[in-house]
């Protein structure tokens, strides 16, 4: 083999005359993904390439007193060994704050922090060489929670902070503090017939994408580097990598390789800068592939949270006030903690109206693993707590929990506690009605097999722990609210380059964006938009790279909205130009050129009445029309520091769940029998993909409810960095997931769509836990719920 194997290729998809917006068009990359030919980052290969490996710190908090690379460098097959002192330029990077060292700067701040890098001719050689690096540590006690972080004399994680949040926090170990205050909490309390106050806790969840962090860095003749990586945002990677390499951005070229899932865990850099450093140092291509163990240390996790809520309500069931304190553990480095804090505070009331609100969210610096983006992004933690509260208040009032929610549900026109009006459909009560009206799964399904119990339908499954004795069913409901797009004044734009040309007599559209396709199906939707706007069958999707302008991040449920919006915008500009050329050439032949609404359809310019005016081939005559344009959604505003007021979000999305569980109350084993979801998506651009997103998010919420947690020991070391010990739902853990999709258009968004990727992740967790509470009668204030929480053992 020679050259490079597995670099991204363009994908052309034809679809007869259909395949436009609103159809369940199939993925253009589906064939390559089923044949095994689709090149993920870990599949890349380059002639003469080396393998990179990372040495990581075995302590959560320590000073490095000595580091000696000599023995590693003497290993045959080793080409480079790099540590902090070898960094050529900028030493730090970070998504929001540049607070994270590229390699450990002498003070270890979390278990697994990268200390040194090795490049060798075989991955095992690199691993063995890394083991020969001598590092001596002076181990320090770790800062592991809010009390320790803010105690008098607490060690400061980042004593030299000068970021924008620093002047507004009560302690330097608090990354950001954001209150959201509205109305008069004391007046609300005075009116309350019942008040419910409770502490909640959310464990640290991992994205657990299946494709491990990987990539290939190839040094270029111009002194720059070409990087093939799996990421969620190519341009923000480049913004952070180029200063570390000491190169101008135009010499750091990124192309997206196949991405094996992301869910927020690829927003931060992992191996990107490391591989590029090794490649430039050795002059050879360097591939890095984390294994699963390393992956658990290689990306940020979902913030664990300690949350206190107080809800009050009148006897009739109207909320009088909601007060909350949400403490999110950001771990050693900021990552996206500031934005997560903003979300938790601004969405902490949930999809309800209440005049008197006092919410405070803070994000901590500790020596725990860094936490940042994961699907749901600050809204998940709050939703578990406020939905648990809604059930408790309903119970105190002897009200039906769904009706109590509907009584307080926000709707279009409601005000958020930030003062922002919700100016598009907010069908919260309707989603609850729909999910409740779905048929219930039959009781005692394990008996349907005839003779004997079908163990597979029982809690504990084939472990044969029960044949139905001690098994109790429970049903629970929850609903949530998630923002779509980047918030709080961020300039959240995307870029699309669209070309229309006639090739071999056939019109072909080419779409080029830097959007990271991480599995969500953005490439499918881009082709659909091009077909709808340009009336073509053939669409070529160019690989995503930094040769085109930024698409922003594949996160915050934003890509179909924002990059989809950019593709539509560029298509419309191309269409306008084509029509203008047509008018210039043929306008005098037919009055409709001047008077009718003109469209592109099937390679022709047609009137809205369907009359063909000209062939594209004749209009374009071999010259393509191409436009590259940026597109922005409506601007948002920062939240003020004291009361958190401002139009902080672009759009809101809503989902509701009904969970049906069966619990073996003797052993504390939970089987989720069904997890039904109703979600408003505004407009389903691709219904098949929309349902897939909702089901995927629902399942991750189930995982948080009863399975998934990164466990730390008292020294803040990760105890379960493997799929043996960190359990994500299998097909046996996951029940049928019926989905009811509502489409109430948002007039502000392209095609009326509503970002779909995250909302179902929120309400899934509290619905499952509510069902387990109903089955067991237990309070269950912490997720994930473990068997010992149910048995009290």
């Amino acid at each position, binding site marked *: 083999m020679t050259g490079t194997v597995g670099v991204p290729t363009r994908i052309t998809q034809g679809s007869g005359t259909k395949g436009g917006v609103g159809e369940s068009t*199939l993925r253009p990359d589906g*064939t390559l993904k089923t044949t095994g030919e689709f090149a993920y980052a870990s599949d890349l290969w380059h002639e003469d390439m080396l393998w990179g490996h990372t040495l990581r710190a075995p302590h959560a908090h320590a000073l490095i007193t000595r580091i000696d690379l000599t023995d590693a460098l003497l290993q045959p097959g080793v080409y480079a060994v790099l540590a902090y002192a070898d960094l050529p330029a900028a030493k730090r990077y970070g998504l929001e704050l540049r607070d994270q060292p590229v390699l450990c700067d002498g003070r270890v701040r979390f278990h697994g922090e990268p200390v040194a890098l090795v490049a060798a001719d*075989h991955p095992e050689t690199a691993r063995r060489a890394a083991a020969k690096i001598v590092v001596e540590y002076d181990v320090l006690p770790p800062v592991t929670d809010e009390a320790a972080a803010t105690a008098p004399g607490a060690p400061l994680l980042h004593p030299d902070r000068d970021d924008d949040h620093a002047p507004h926090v009560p302690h330097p170990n608090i990354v950001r503090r954001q209150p959201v205050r509205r109305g008069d909490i004391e007046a609300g309390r005075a009116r309350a017939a019942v008040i419910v106050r409770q502490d909640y806790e959310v464990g640290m969840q991992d994205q657990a994408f299946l494709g491990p962090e990987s990539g290939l860095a190839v040094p270029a003749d111009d002194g720059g580097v070409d990087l093939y990586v799996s990421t969620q945002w190519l341009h923000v990677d480049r913004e952070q990598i180029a200063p570390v390499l000491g190169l101008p951005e135009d010499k750091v070229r990124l192309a997206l390789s196949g991405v094996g899932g992301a869910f927020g865990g690829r927003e931060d850099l992992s191996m990107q800068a490391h591989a590029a450093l090794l490649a430039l140092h050795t002059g050879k291509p360097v591939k890095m592939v984390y294994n*699963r163990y390393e992956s658990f240390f290689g990306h940020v996790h979902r913030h664990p949270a300690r949350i206190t809520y107080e809800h009050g309500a009148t006897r009739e069931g109207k909320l009088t006030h909601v007060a909350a304190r949400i403490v999110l553990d950001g771990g050693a480095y900021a990552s996206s903690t500031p934005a997560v804090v903003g979300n938790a505070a601004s969405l902490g009331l949930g999809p309800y109206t209440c005049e008197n609100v006092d919410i405070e969210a803070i994000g901590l610096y500790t020596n725990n693993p860094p936490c940042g983006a994961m699907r749901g992004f600050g809204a998940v933690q709050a939703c578990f707590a406020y939905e648990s509260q809604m059930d408790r208040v309903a119970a105190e009032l002897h009200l039906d929990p769904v009706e109590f929610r509907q009584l307080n549900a926000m709707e279009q026109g409601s005000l958020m506690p930030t003062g922002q009006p919700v100016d598009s459909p907010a069908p919260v009560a309707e989603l609850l009605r729909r999910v409740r009206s779905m048929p219930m799964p039959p009781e005692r399904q394990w008996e349907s097999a005839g003779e004997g119990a079908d163990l597979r339908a029982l809690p504990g499954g084939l472990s044969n722990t029960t044949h139905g004795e001690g098994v109790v069913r429970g049903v629970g409901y929850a609903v949530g609210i998630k923002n779509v797009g980047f918030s709080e004044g961020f300039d959240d734009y995307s870029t699309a380059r669209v070309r229309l040309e006639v090739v071999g007599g056939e019109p072909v559209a080419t779409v080029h964006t830097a959007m990271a396709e991480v599995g969500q199906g953005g490439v499918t939707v881009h082709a659909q938009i091009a077909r709808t706007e340009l009336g073509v069958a053939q669409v070529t999707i160019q690989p995503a790279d930094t040769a085109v302008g930024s698409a922003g991040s594949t996160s915050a449920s934003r890509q179909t909205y924002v990059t989809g919006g950019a593709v539509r915008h560029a298509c419309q500009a191309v269409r306008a130009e084509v029509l203008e050329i047509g008018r210039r050439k043929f306008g005098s032949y037919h009055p409709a050129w001047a008077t009718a609404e003109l469209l592109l359809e099937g390679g022709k310019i047609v009137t809205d009445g369907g009359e063909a005016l000209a062939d594209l081939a004749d209009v374009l005559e071999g010259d393509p029309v191409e436009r590259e344009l940026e597109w922005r959604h409506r601007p948002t505003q920062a939240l003020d520091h004291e009361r958190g007021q401002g139009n902080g979000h672009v759009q809101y999305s809503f989902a509701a769940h009904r969970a049906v569980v069966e619990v073996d109350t003797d052993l504390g084993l939970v089987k989720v029998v069904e997890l039904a979801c109703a979600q408003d998506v505004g407009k389903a651009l691709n219904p098949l*993909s929309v349902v897939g997103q909702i089901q995927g998010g629902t*399942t991750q919420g189930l995982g948080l409810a009863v399975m998934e947690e990164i466990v730390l020991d008292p020294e803040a070391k990760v105890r379960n960095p493997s799929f043996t010990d960190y359990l994500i739902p299998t097909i046996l853990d996951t029940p049928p997931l019926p989905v009811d999709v509502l489409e109430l258009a948002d007039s502000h968004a392209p095609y009326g769509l509503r970002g779909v990727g995250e909302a179902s992740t929120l309400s899934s967790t509290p619905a499952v836990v509510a069902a387990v509470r109903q089955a067991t009668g237990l309070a269950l204030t912490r997720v994930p719920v473990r068997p010992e929480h149910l048995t009290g053992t």
Partner: protein
Amino acid sequence: MRVNLRVNGRPRQVDDVWEGESLLYVLRERMGLPGSKNACEQGECGSCSVRLDDVLVCSCLVAAGQAEGREVLTVEGLPGASAPSSALSSDPSGDSSEDDRSGELAPIQQAFIDAGAVQCGFCTPGLLVAADDLLRRDSDPSDADIREALSGNLCRCTGYEKILDAVRLAAARGETRRREGG
């Protein structure tokens, strides 16, 4: 060391294999067959599933030397190893077979595409080999059978519903094919 084995029906010889290398590593890095995936490399996720002789295994847990003289089927070999999909590879809406490559697909591969069972796709090759193995043993599996057979394959994107749909679809198409004597 040298390893001789048959992969997807073809004899293969690999030299300079270090004794610690897994079958997965040799397939991916020495044979140019990266379809089998490396998601956990400890037998928990099923992304590297292959058939070794006639047994479904995680190739990450098989030392390359253990495959000496044996027959390996990977996702790359599925089209040749399954019953030909012939005209059954398009769904009733006529919207499948989006590009010209569908003729090369095994029925289970086409069903995964048509049912929307592929998102990021990293788990897909292992699931395809496992689902094909199930359908070879049981042409009309119940949902509980499908769940049991695929319980060693983790997927993080789909929530498995579309994967169940895909296996049901492939089974139904197989039934149609048999009924029509195809």
